[in-house]
Protein backbone atom coordinates (compact mmCIF):
# COMPACT_ATOMS: atom_id res chain seq x y z
CA UNK A 1 0.00 0.00 0.00
CA UNK A 2 2.99 2.30 0.46
CA UNK A 3 3.37 2.28 -3.30
CA UNK A 4 -0.11 3.78 -3.68
CA UNK A 5 0.29 6.34 -0.86
CA UNK A 6 -0.46 9.90 -1.96
CA UNK A 7 0.21 13.09 -0.02
CA UNK A 8 -3.05 14.81 -0.92
CA UNK A 9 -2.12 17.97 0.96
CA UNK A 10 0.87 18.44 -1.33
CA UNK A 11 -1.20 18.31 -4.53
CA UNK A 12 -0.70 21.46 -6.60
CA UNK A 13 -3.20 22.99 -9.02
CA UNK A 14 -1.40 21.26 -11.91
CA UNK A 15 -1.64 17.92 -10.10
CA UNK A 16 -5.41 18.33 -9.72
CA UNK A 17 -5.76 19.36 -13.37
CA UNK A 18 -3.85 16.22 -14.31
CA UNK A 19 -6.19 14.09 -12.21
CA UNK A 20 -9.22 15.80 -13.74
CA UNK A 21 -8.11 15.25 -17.35
CA UNK A 22 -7.07 11.66 -16.62
CA UNK A 23 -10.45 10.76 -15.13
CA UNK A 24 -12.31 12.74 -17.83
CA UNK A 25 -10.45 10.86 -20.59
CA UNK A 26 -11.26 7.55 -18.89
CA UNK A 27 -14.96 8.40 -18.58
CA UNK A 28 -15.08 9.62 -22.20
CA UNK A 29 -13.53 6.36 -23.37
CA UNK A 30 -16.15 4.35 -21.46
CA UNK A 31 -18.84 6.53 -23.07
CA UNK A 32 -17.44 5.73 -26.52
CA UNK A 33 -17.51 2.00 -25.77
CA UNK A 34 -21.16 2.24 -24.66
CA UNK A 35 -22.06 4.26 -27.77
CA UNK A 36 -20.33 1.90 -30.19
CA UNK A 37 -21.53 -1.34 -28.65
CA UNK A 38 -25.12 -0.17 -28.08
CA UNK A 39 -27.17 -2.47 -30.37
CA UNK A 40 -29.40 0.49 -31.27
CA UNK A 41 -26.47 2.19 -33.00
CA UNK A 42 -25.30 -0.85 -34.96
CA UNK A 43 -27.26 -0.15 -38.13
CA UNK A 44 -26.40 3.56 -38.10
CA UNK A 45 -22.68 2.77 -38.00
CA UNK A 46 -22.62 -0.16 -40.35
CA UNK A 47 -24.69 1.64 -42.98
CA UNK A 48 -21.53 3.66 -43.67
CA UNK A 49 -19.26 0.66 -44.19
CA UNK A 50 -19.38 0.95 -48.00
CA UNK A 51 -18.93 4.72 -48.08
CA UNK A 52 -15.47 4.45 -49.66
CA UNK A 53 -17.01 2.59 -52.58
CA UNK A 54 -19.57 5.26 -53.37
CA UNK A 55 -17.36 7.56 -55.43
CA UNK A 56 -16.94 5.33 -58.47
CA UNK A 57 -20.15 6.26 -60.22
CA UNK A 58 -22.18 3.42 -58.78
CA UNK A 59 -23.47 5.74 -56.10
CA UNK A 60 -24.39 9.39 -56.22
CA UNK A 61 -22.88 12.05 -54.00
CA UNK A 62 -25.46 11.47 -51.30
CA UNK A 63 -24.36 7.89 -50.98
CA UNK A 64 -27.54 6.54 -52.57
CA UNK A 65 -27.30 3.92 -55.28
CA UNK A 66 -28.02 5.33 -58.74
Amino acid at each position, binding site marked *: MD*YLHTDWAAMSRNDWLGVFFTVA*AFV*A*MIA*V*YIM*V*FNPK*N*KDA*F*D*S*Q*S*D*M*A*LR*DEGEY*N*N*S*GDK*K
Partner: protein
Amino acid sequence: MEATNATPVKYDMDVVRWFTIAAIIFGVVGTFIGVYVASELAWPFLNFDIPEITFGRLRPLHTNAVIFAFGGNVLFATGYYIVQRTGATKLWSNKLAWFHFWGWQAIIICAVITLPMGMSQGKEYAELPWWVDIMIAVVWLSYGLNYVMTNAIRKTSHMYVSNWFTMGMIVMITYLHVVNSLAIPVDWATSYSIYSGVQDAMIQWWWGHNAVGFYLTGGFLGIMYYFIPKQSGRPVFSYRLSVLHFWTLTFGYVWLGAHHLQYTALPDWTGSLGAAISLAMIIPSWGGAMNGMMTLSGAWDKLRTDYILRFLVTAMAFYAMSTFDGPVMAIKSVNALSHYTDWTVGHVHAGALGWMSMISFGALYHMVKKLWNTEMYSDRLVNVHFWIALIGATTYVVAMWVSGIMQGLMWRDYDEYGTLTYTFVESVSAMHPYYVMRAVGGAIFNLGTWIMLFNVVMTVRQASASRSANPVAARA
Protein backbone atom coordinates in the same frame (compact mmCIF):
# COMPACT_ATOMS: atom_id res chain seq x y z
CA MET B 1 -25.48 18.60 -46.34
CA GLU B 2 -26.97 16.00 -48.66
CA ALA B 3 -26.37 16.58 -52.35
CA THR B 4 -29.52 16.72 -54.37
CA ASN B 5 -28.16 15.24 -57.57
CA ALA B 6 -25.37 13.12 -58.89
CA THR B 7 -23.51 15.90 -60.71
CA PRO B 8 -19.91 14.75 -61.20
CA VAL B 9 -17.52 16.60 -58.94
CA LYS B 10 -14.41 18.23 -60.41
CA TYR B 11 -11.77 17.49 -57.80
CA ASP B 12 -8.49 19.37 -57.23
CA MET B 13 -6.16 16.50 -58.07
CA ASP B 14 -3.11 18.28 -59.52
CA VAL B 15 -1.68 18.92 -56.07
CA VAL B 16 -2.39 15.28 -55.18
CA ARG B 17 -0.39 14.17 -58.25
CA TRP B 18 2.58 16.28 -57.16
CA PHE B 19 2.46 15.00 -53.58
CA THR B 20 2.28 11.46 -55.01
CA ILE B 21 5.36 11.89 -57.19
CA ALA B 22 7.25 13.63 -54.35
CA ALA B 23 6.42 10.70 -52.05
CA ILE B 24 7.77 8.14 -54.51
CA ILE B 25 11.00 10.10 -55.05
CA PHE B 26 11.57 10.58 -51.31
CA GLY B 27 10.83 6.89 -50.77
CA VAL B 28 13.87 6.16 -52.92
CA VAL B 29 16.05 8.87 -51.36
CA GLY B 30 15.11 8.21 -47.73
CA THR B 31 15.68 4.46 -47.86
CA PHE B 32 18.92 4.96 -49.83
CA ILE B 33 20.31 7.17 -47.04
CA GLY B 34 19.17 4.47 -44.61
CA VAL B 35 21.16 1.85 -46.51
CA TYR B 36 24.21 4.10 -46.46
CA VAL B 37 24.10 4.71 -42.70
CA ALA B 38 23.47 1.00 -42.09
CA SER B 39 26.52 0.26 -44.24
CA GLU B 40 28.57 2.75 -42.20
CA LEU B 41 27.81 0.71 -39.09
CA ALA B 42 28.90 -2.48 -40.85
CA TRP B 43 31.92 -0.95 -42.63
CA PRO B 44 32.94 2.23 -40.76
CA PHE B 45 35.49 3.25 -43.42
CA LEU B 46 32.47 4.53 -45.38
CA ASN B 47 32.61 7.63 -43.17
CA PHE B 48 35.68 8.65 -45.23
CA ASP B 49 36.49 11.00 -42.33
CA ILE B 50 34.06 13.52 -43.80
CA PRO B 51 32.04 15.01 -40.91
CA GLU B 52 28.99 15.75 -43.10
CA ILE B 53 28.44 12.08 -43.93
CA THR B 54 29.18 10.50 -40.57
CA PHE B 55 26.52 8.29 -38.97
CA GLY B 56 25.61 10.88 -36.33
CA ARG B 57 24.63 13.44 -38.98
CA LEU B 58 23.17 11.20 -41.67
CA ARG B 59 21.05 9.11 -39.30
CA PRO B 60 18.69 12.00 -38.45
CA LEU B 61 18.62 12.89 -42.16
CA HIS B 62 17.48 9.31 -42.87
CA THR B 63 14.77 9.36 -40.20
CA ASN B 64 13.54 12.82 -41.25
CA ALA B 65 13.56 11.80 -44.92
CA VAL B 66 11.55 8.62 -44.46
CA ILE B 67 9.16 9.94 -41.81
CA PHE B 68 8.53 13.50 -42.96
CA ALA B 69 9.55 13.55 -46.64
CA PHE B 70 8.29 10.11 -47.74
CA GLY B 71 5.66 9.55 -45.05
CA GLY B 72 4.53 13.19 -45.04
CA ASN B 73 4.03 13.37 -48.80
CA VAL B 74 2.15 10.03 -48.70
CA LEU B 75 -0.14 11.31 -45.95
CA PHE B 76 -0.82 14.59 -47.75
CA ALA B 77 -1.43 12.96 -51.14
CA THR B 78 -3.80 10.36 -49.71
CA GLY B 79 -5.39 12.84 -47.28
CA TYR B 80 -6.34 15.34 -50.00
CA TYR B 81 -7.45 12.45 -52.26
CA ILE B 82 -9.66 10.81 -49.65
CA VAL B 83 -11.22 13.95 -48.22
CA GLN B 84 -12.38 15.11 -51.65
CA ARG B 85 -13.71 11.76 -52.82
CA THR B 86 -15.49 10.78 -49.60
CA GLY B 87 -16.89 14.28 -49.18
CA ALA B 88 -17.80 14.66 -52.88
CA THR B 89 -16.27 18.11 -52.90
CA LYS B 90 -13.25 20.06 -54.13
CA LEU B 91 -10.65 21.28 -51.71
CA TRP B 92 -11.67 24.30 -49.66
CA SER B 93 -8.61 26.12 -51.01
CA ASN B 94 -6.50 24.79 -53.85
CA LYS B 95 -4.05 27.69 -53.41
CA LEU B 96 -3.51 26.81 -49.76
CA ALA B 97 -2.84 23.19 -50.80
CA TRP B 98 -0.13 24.41 -53.19
CA PHE B 99 1.34 26.60 -50.43
CA HIS B 100 1.35 23.44 -48.31
CA PHE B 101 3.08 21.45 -51.05
CA TRP B 102 5.89 23.92 -51.72
CA GLY B 103 6.24 24.82 -48.03
CA TRP B 104 6.71 21.16 -47.10
CA GLN B 105 9.29 20.58 -49.84
CA ALA B 106 11.16 23.73 -48.66
CA ILE B 107 11.27 22.25 -45.14
CA ILE B 108 12.73 19.04 -46.56
CA ILE B 109 15.43 21.04 -48.38
CA CYS B 110 16.24 22.84 -45.10
CA ALA B 111 16.67 19.40 -43.45
CA VAL B 112 18.97 18.25 -46.25
CA ILE B 113 21.17 21.32 -45.69
CA THR B 114 21.13 21.72 -41.89
CA LEU B 115 21.39 18.14 -40.62
CA PRO B 116 24.61 17.17 -42.47
CA MET B 117 26.07 20.50 -41.29
CA GLY B 118 25.58 19.28 -37.76
CA MET B 119 22.77 21.64 -36.78
CA SER B 120 20.59 19.63 -34.41
CA GLN B 121 18.48 20.23 -31.34
CA GLY B 122 19.36 16.71 -30.25
CA LYS B 123 15.71 15.73 -29.82
CA GLU B 124 14.88 12.49 -31.62
CA TYR B 125 12.58 12.97 -34.62
CA ALA B 126 12.66 16.71 -33.84
CA GLU B 127 16.27 17.55 -34.64
CA LEU B 128 15.63 20.44 -37.02
CA PRO B 129 16.65 23.98 -35.98
CA TRP B 130 14.13 26.21 -34.18
CA TRP B 131 13.37 28.35 -37.24
CA VAL B 132 12.53 25.23 -39.28
CA ASP B 133 10.20 24.22 -36.42
CA ILE B 134 8.34 27.49 -36.98
CA MET B 135 8.12 26.76 -40.72
CA ILE B 136 6.74 23.30 -39.92
CA ALA B 137 4.09 24.80 -37.63
CA VAL B 138 2.95 27.32 -40.28
CA VAL B 139 2.82 24.79 -43.13
CA TRP B 140 1.17 22.13 -40.94
CA LEU B 141 -1.52 24.58 -39.82
CA SER B 142 -2.23 25.50 -43.45
CA TYR B 143 -2.81 21.78 -44.08
CA GLY B 144 -4.99 21.48 -40.99
CA LEU B 145 -7.12 24.50 -41.90
CA ASN B 146 -7.61 23.30 -45.47
CA TYR B 147 -8.44 19.75 -44.38
CA VAL B 148 -10.93 20.77 -41.70
CA MET B 149 -12.63 23.29 -43.97
CA THR B 150 -12.85 20.78 -46.83
CA ASN B 151 -14.62 18.43 -44.44
CA ALA B 152 -16.88 21.28 -43.38
CA ILE B 153 -18.01 21.94 -46.99
CA ARG B 154 -18.49 18.26 -47.85
CA LYS B 155 -21.65 17.25 -49.73
CA THR B 156 -22.16 13.99 -47.84
CA SER B 157 -23.87 13.83 -44.46
CA HIS B 158 -21.40 11.41 -42.89
CA MET B 159 -17.71 12.07 -42.42
CA TYR B 160 -15.85 8.88 -43.35
CA VAL B 161 -13.66 7.26 -40.67
CA SER B 162 -10.45 7.89 -42.67
CA ASN B 163 -11.03 11.62 -42.30
CA TRP B 164 -11.44 11.19 -38.54
CA PHE B 165 -8.06 9.48 -38.34
CA THR B 166 -6.43 12.22 -40.42
CA MET B 167 -7.99 15.02 -38.40
CA GLY B 168 -6.99 13.29 -35.16
CA MET B 169 -3.44 13.26 -36.50
CA ILE B 170 -3.59 16.94 -37.49
CA VAL B 171 -4.86 18.08 -34.08
CA MET B 172 -2.46 15.95 -32.05
CA ILE B 173 0.66 16.63 -34.13
CA THR B 174 0.00 20.38 -33.89
CA TYR B 175 -0.16 20.12 -30.11
CA LEU B 176 2.82 17.74 -29.85
CA HIS B 177 5.08 19.64 -32.24
CA VAL B 178 4.48 23.03 -30.63
CA VAL B 179 4.94 21.85 -27.04
CA ASN B 180 7.98 19.66 -27.79
CA SER B 181 9.68 22.36 -29.86
CA LEU B 182 9.43 25.20 -27.31
CA ALA B 183 12.98 26.51 -27.07
CA ILE B 184 15.02 29.65 -26.46
CA PRO B 185 16.93 30.57 -29.64
CA VAL B 186 20.55 31.68 -29.19
CA ASP B 187 21.47 32.10 -32.84
CA TRP B 188 20.13 30.68 -36.09
CA ALA B 189 21.83 27.32 -35.51
CA THR B 190 21.51 26.98 -31.73
CA SER B 191 18.65 26.89 -29.25
CA TYR B 192 17.96 25.46 -25.82
CA SER B 193 14.84 23.52 -24.89
CA ILE B 194 12.74 25.26 -22.25
CA TYR B 195 12.56 21.94 -20.40
CA SER B 196 15.40 20.47 -18.44
CA GLY B 197 16.40 17.11 -17.02
CA VAL B 198 13.73 14.51 -16.59
CA GLN B 199 10.96 16.86 -17.79
CA ASP B 200 12.83 17.26 -21.08
CA ALA B 201 13.11 13.47 -21.41
CA MET B 202 9.41 13.04 -20.66
CA ILE B 203 8.35 15.70 -23.17
CA GLN B 204 10.74 14.21 -25.76
CA TRP B 205 9.15 10.78 -25.53
CA TRP B 206 5.64 12.13 -25.16
CA TRP B 207 6.34 13.66 -28.59
CA GLY B 208 8.39 10.72 -29.90
CA HIS B 209 5.87 8.00 -29.21
CA ASN B 210 2.89 10.07 -30.22
CA ALA B 211 4.56 10.92 -33.52
CA VAL B 212 4.50 7.14 -33.97
CA GLY B 213 0.95 6.90 -32.62
CA PHE B 214 -0.82 9.70 -34.42
CA TYR B 215 1.36 10.28 -37.50
CA LEU B 216 2.82 6.89 -38.41
CA THR B 217 -0.15 4.91 -37.10
CA GLY B 218 -3.28 7.09 -37.02
CA GLY B 219 -2.57 8.85 -40.30
CA PHE B 220 -1.77 5.59 -42.08
CA LEU B 221 -4.83 3.87 -40.60
CA GLY B 222 -6.84 6.54 -42.40
CA ILE B 223 -5.16 5.29 -45.57
CA MET B 224 -5.95 1.68 -44.67
CA TYR B 225 -9.66 2.29 -44.06
CA TYR B 226 -10.05 3.90 -47.48
CA PHE B 227 -7.72 1.96 -49.77
CA ILE B 228 -8.37 -1.64 -48.61
CA PRO B 229 -12.12 -1.33 -49.33
CA LYS B 230 -11.37 0.48 -52.60
CA GLN B 231 -8.82 -2.00 -53.88
CA SER B 232 -10.75 -5.08 -52.77
CA GLY B 233 -14.15 -3.70 -53.78
CA ARG B 234 -15.53 -4.76 -50.40
CA PRO B 235 -17.10 -2.61 -47.66
CA VAL B 236 -15.28 -2.23 -44.35
CA PHE B 237 -15.83 -5.45 -42.38
CA SER B 238 -17.16 -3.60 -39.31
CA TYR B 239 -17.63 0.14 -39.37
CA ARG B 240 -18.46 0.03 -35.65
CA LEU B 241 -15.07 -1.46 -34.98
CA SER B 242 -13.39 1.26 -37.04
CA VAL B 243 -15.06 3.94 -34.90
CA LEU B 244 -13.96 2.16 -31.74
CA HIS B 245 -10.47 1.79 -33.22
CA PHE B 246 -10.25 5.55 -33.76
CA TRP B 247 -11.42 6.59 -30.31
CA THR B 248 -9.45 4.02 -28.32
CA LEU B 249 -6.31 4.91 -30.25
CA THR B 250 -6.91 8.59 -29.64
CA PHE B 251 -7.56 8.21 -25.92
CA GLY B 252 -4.94 5.56 -25.35
CA TYR B 253 -1.85 6.53 -27.32
CA VAL B 254 -1.03 9.71 -25.40
CA TRP B 255 -0.15 7.68 -22.31
CA LEU B 256 2.51 5.47 -23.84
CA GLY B 257 5.58 7.71 -24.08
CA ALA B 258 6.87 6.89 -20.60
CA HIS B 259 7.53 3.28 -21.61
CA HIS B 260 10.60 4.62 -23.44
CA LEU B 261 12.01 5.72 -20.10
CA GLN B 262 11.87 2.62 -17.90
CA TYR B 263 14.61 2.47 -15.24
CA THR B 264 15.46 6.17 -15.55
CA ALA B 265 15.05 9.15 -13.19
CA LEU B 266 11.39 9.33 -14.16
CA PRO B 267 9.04 8.34 -11.32
CA ASP B 268 8.56 4.57 -11.37
CA TRP B 269 4.77 4.75 -11.66
CA THR B 270 4.90 6.66 -14.95
CA GLY B 271 6.80 3.79 -16.62
CA SER B 272 4.36 1.27 -15.12
CA LEU B 273 1.41 3.31 -16.41
CA GLY B 274 3.02 3.54 -19.85
CA ALA B 275 3.53 -0.24 -19.91
CA ALA B 276 -0.01 -1.00 -18.68
CA ILE B 277 -1.68 1.22 -21.29
CA SER B 278 0.69 -0.15 -23.96
CA LEU B 279 -0.59 -3.66 -23.23
CA ALA B 280 -4.18 -2.44 -23.25
CA MET B 281 -3.59 -0.95 -26.71
CA ILE B 282 -3.12 -4.43 -28.17
CA ILE B 283 -6.92 -4.78 -28.09
CA PRO B 284 -7.87 -1.86 -30.38
CA SER B 285 -4.77 -2.34 -32.55
CA TRP B 286 -5.54 -5.99 -33.22
CA GLY B 287 -9.22 -5.16 -33.59
CA GLY B 288 -8.25 -2.69 -36.31
CA ALA B 289 -5.86 -5.12 -37.98
CA MET B 290 -8.54 -7.83 -38.02
CA ASN B 291 -11.02 -5.30 -39.37
CA GLY B 292 -8.67 -4.51 -42.26
CA MET B 293 -8.00 -8.15 -43.03
CA MET B 294 -11.60 -9.30 -42.67
CA THR B 295 -12.62 -6.60 -45.15
CA LEU B 296 -11.33 -9.10 -47.70
CA SER B 297 -14.00 -11.61 -46.68
CA GLY B 298 -15.38 -12.97 -49.91
CA ALA B 299 -12.54 -11.51 -51.93
CA TRP B 300 -9.49 -13.44 -50.73
CA ASP B 301 -9.08 -14.89 -54.22
CA LYS B 302 -8.12 -11.41 -55.42
CA LEU B 303 -4.79 -11.77 -53.65
CA ARG B 304 -3.74 -14.20 -56.39
CA THR B 305 -3.99 -11.60 -59.11
CA ASP B 306 -4.14 -8.19 -57.43
CA TYR B 307 -0.58 -7.24 -56.51
CA ILE B 308 -1.59 -3.87 -55.06
CA LEU B 309 -3.91 -5.64 -52.64
CA ARG B 310 -0.99 -7.81 -51.53
CA PHE B 311 0.84 -4.69 -50.32
CA LEU B 312 -2.21 -3.52 -48.39
CA VAL B 313 -2.94 -6.84 -46.69
CA THR B 314 0.70 -7.57 -45.86
CA ALA B 315 0.82 -4.14 -44.24
CA MET B 316 -1.99 -5.23 -41.92
CA ALA B 317 -0.02 -8.34 -40.91
CA PHE B 318 3.01 -6.17 -40.04
CA TYR B 319 0.74 -3.72 -38.21
CA ALA B 320 -0.59 -6.56 -36.05
CA MET B 321 2.93 -7.86 -35.44
CA SER B 322 4.36 -4.45 -34.51
CA THR B 323 1.50 -3.61 -32.20
CA PHE B 324 2.16 -6.84 -30.31
CA ASP B 325 5.95 -6.49 -30.31
CA GLY B 326 5.82 -2.92 -28.95
CA PRO B 327 3.63 -3.54 -25.90
CA VAL B 328 5.67 -6.63 -24.99
CA MET B 329 8.83 -4.51 -25.10
CA ALA B 330 7.14 -1.96 -22.81
CA ILE B 331 6.85 -4.52 -19.99
CA LYS B 332 9.57 -3.66 -17.49
CA SER B 333 11.15 -7.11 -17.31
CA VAL B 334 11.31 -7.38 -21.11
CA ASN B 335 12.44 -3.76 -21.38
CA ALA B 336 15.38 -4.55 -19.10
CA LEU B 337 16.62 -6.83 -21.87
CA SER B 338 15.47 -4.96 -24.96
CA HIS B 339 16.16 -1.31 -24.17
CA TYR B 340 19.17 0.32 -25.87
CA THR B 341 19.58 -2.77 -28.09
CA ASP B 342 18.92 -3.42 -31.77
CA TRP B 343 15.63 -5.09 -30.84
CA THR B 344 14.18 -1.55 -30.72
CA VAL B 345 15.57 -0.86 -34.20
CA GLY B 346 13.99 -4.11 -35.43
CA HIS B 347 10.65 -3.17 -33.87
CA VAL B 348 10.68 0.29 -35.42
CA HIS B 349 11.51 -1.09 -38.87
CA ALA B 350 8.83 -3.80 -38.67
CA GLY B 351 6.49 -0.83 -38.37
CA ALA B 352 8.26 1.46 -40.85
CA LEU B 353 9.09 -1.03 -43.62
CA GLY B 354 6.33 -3.57 -43.05
CA TRP B 355 3.37 -1.44 -42.02
CA MET B 356 3.89 2.17 -43.06
CA SER B 357 5.76 1.60 -46.32
CA MET B 358 3.67 -1.35 -47.49
CA ILE B 359 0.37 0.47 -46.94
CA SER B 360 1.90 3.52 -48.64
CA PHE B 361 3.08 1.57 -51.69
CA GLY B 362 -0.36 -0.03 -52.08
CA ALA B 363 -2.14 3.31 -51.76
CA LEU B 364 0.29 5.06 -54.12
CA TYR B 365 -0.10 2.40 -56.84
CA HIS B 366 -3.88 2.60 -56.47
CA MET B 367 -3.83 6.40 -56.75
CA VAL B 368 -1.41 6.50 -59.69
CA LYS B 369 -3.85 4.42 -61.75
CA LYS B 370 -6.78 6.65 -60.79
CA LEU B 371 -4.99 10.01 -60.97
CA TRP B 372 -3.57 9.39 -64.44
CA ASN B 373 -6.60 7.36 -65.53
CA THR B 374 -4.51 4.47 -66.81
CA GLU B 375 -3.26 0.98 -66.00
CA MET B 376 0.21 0.45 -64.56
CA TYR B 377 3.01 0.27 -67.12
CA SER B 378 3.86 -3.16 -65.71
CA ASP B 379 1.76 -5.15 -63.23
CA ARG B 380 4.56 -7.68 -63.22
CA LEU B 381 6.94 -5.05 -61.80
CA VAL B 382 4.40 -4.27 -59.06
CA ASN B 383 4.55 -7.94 -58.12
CA VAL B 384 8.37 -7.91 -58.25
CA HIS B 385 8.36 -4.81 -56.02
CA PHE B 386 6.05 -6.55 -53.55
CA TRP B 387 8.30 -9.60 -53.13
CA ILE B 388 11.47 -7.50 -52.99
CA ALA B 389 9.95 -5.24 -50.34
CA LEU B 390 8.78 -8.23 -48.31
CA ILE B 391 12.13 -10.04 -48.50
CA GLY B 392 14.06 -6.83 -47.72
CA ALA B 393 11.87 -5.89 -44.76
CA THR B 394 11.94 -9.41 -43.31
CA THR B 395 15.72 -9.72 -43.69
CA TYR B 396 16.21 -6.37 -41.97
CA VAL B 397 13.81 -7.03 -39.10
CA VAL B 398 15.01 -10.58 -38.38
CA ALA B 399 18.66 -9.39 -38.34
CA MET B 400 17.86 -6.70 -35.80
CA TRP B 401 15.71 -8.93 -33.59
CA VAL B 402 18.44 -11.58 -33.36
CA SER B 403 21.15 -8.96 -32.94
CA GLY B 404 19.18 -7.08 -30.26
CA ILE B 405 18.34 -10.10 -28.12
CA MET B 406 21.94 -11.29 -28.37
CA GLN B 407 23.19 -7.83 -27.40
CA GLY B 408 20.90 -7.69 -24.37
CA LEU B 409 21.90 -11.17 -23.22
CA MET B 410 25.64 -10.40 -23.63
CA TRP B 411 25.39 -7.15 -21.67
CA ARG B 412 23.67 -8.75 -18.68
CA ASP B 413 25.68 -11.98 -18.52
CA TYR B 414 28.08 -12.36 -15.60
CA ASP B 415 30.28 -15.12 -14.22
CA GLU B 416 30.41 -16.82 -10.81
CA TYR B 417 32.48 -13.91 -9.41
CA GLY B 418 29.81 -11.37 -10.40
CA THR B 419 31.98 -9.95 -13.18
CA LEU B 420 30.53 -9.14 -16.59
CA THR B 421 31.30 -11.98 -19.00
CA TYR B 422 31.69 -9.80 -22.07
CA THR B 423 33.20 -6.39 -22.66
CA PHE B 424 31.12 -3.89 -24.60
CA VAL B 425 33.55 -4.14 -27.52
CA GLU B 426 32.99 -7.91 -27.68
CA SER B 427 29.26 -7.31 -27.99
CA VAL B 428 29.87 -4.80 -30.80
CA SER B 429 32.08 -7.33 -32.59
CA ALA B 430 29.39 -10.02 -32.25
CA MET B 431 26.90 -7.69 -33.94
CA HIS B 432 28.90 -7.33 -37.13
CA PRO B 433 27.30 -10.17 -39.17
CA TYR B 434 23.85 -8.82 -38.28
CA TYR B 435 24.83 -5.28 -39.27
CA VAL B 436 25.91 -6.64 -42.66
CA MET B 437 22.62 -8.55 -42.92
CA ARG B 438 20.72 -5.38 -42.01
CA ALA B 439 22.50 -3.39 -44.72
CA VAL B 440 21.72 -6.11 -47.26
CA GLY B 441 18.04 -6.23 -46.21
CA GLY B 442 17.82 -2.44 -46.48
CA ALA B 443 19.48 -2.47 -49.89
CA ILE B 444 16.96 -5.05 -51.13
CA PHE B 445 14.12 -2.89 -49.84
CA ASN B 446 15.65 0.21 -51.48
CA LEU B 447 15.90 -1.65 -54.80
CA GLY B 448 12.12 -2.11 -54.66
CA THR B 449 11.59 1.66 -54.38
CA TRP B 450 13.72 2.21 -57.53
CA ILE B 451 11.53 -0.32 -59.36
CA MET B 452 8.44 1.52 -58.19
CA LEU B 453 9.85 4.87 -59.35
CA PHE B 454 10.65 3.41 -62.79
CA ASN B 455 7.22 1.80 -63.08
CA VAL B 456 5.39 4.98 -62.07
CA VAL B 457 7.46 7.20 -64.39
CA MET B 458 6.71 4.86 -67.29
CA THR B 459 3.02 4.76 -66.29
CA VAL B 460 2.78 8.55 -66.28
CA ARG B 461 4.58 8.76 -69.64
CA GLN B 462 2.22 6.12 -71.03
CA ALA B 463 -0.79 8.09 -69.79
CA SER B 464 0.58 11.34 -71.25
CA ALA B 465 1.20 9.68 -74.61
CA SER B 466 -2.30 8.23 -74.59
CA ARG B 467 -3.79 11.64 -73.73
CA SER B 468 -1.86 13.32 -76.56
CA ALA B 469 -3.02 10.67 -79.03
CA ASN B 470 -6.65 10.77 -77.92
CA PRO B 471 -7.45 14.01 -76.03
CA VAL B 472 -11.23 13.48 -76.13
CA ALA B 473 -11.11 10.02 -74.57
CA ALA B 474 -8.59 11.22 -72.00
CA ARG B 475 -11.00 13.88 -70.78
CA ALA B 476 -13.88 11.43 -70.46
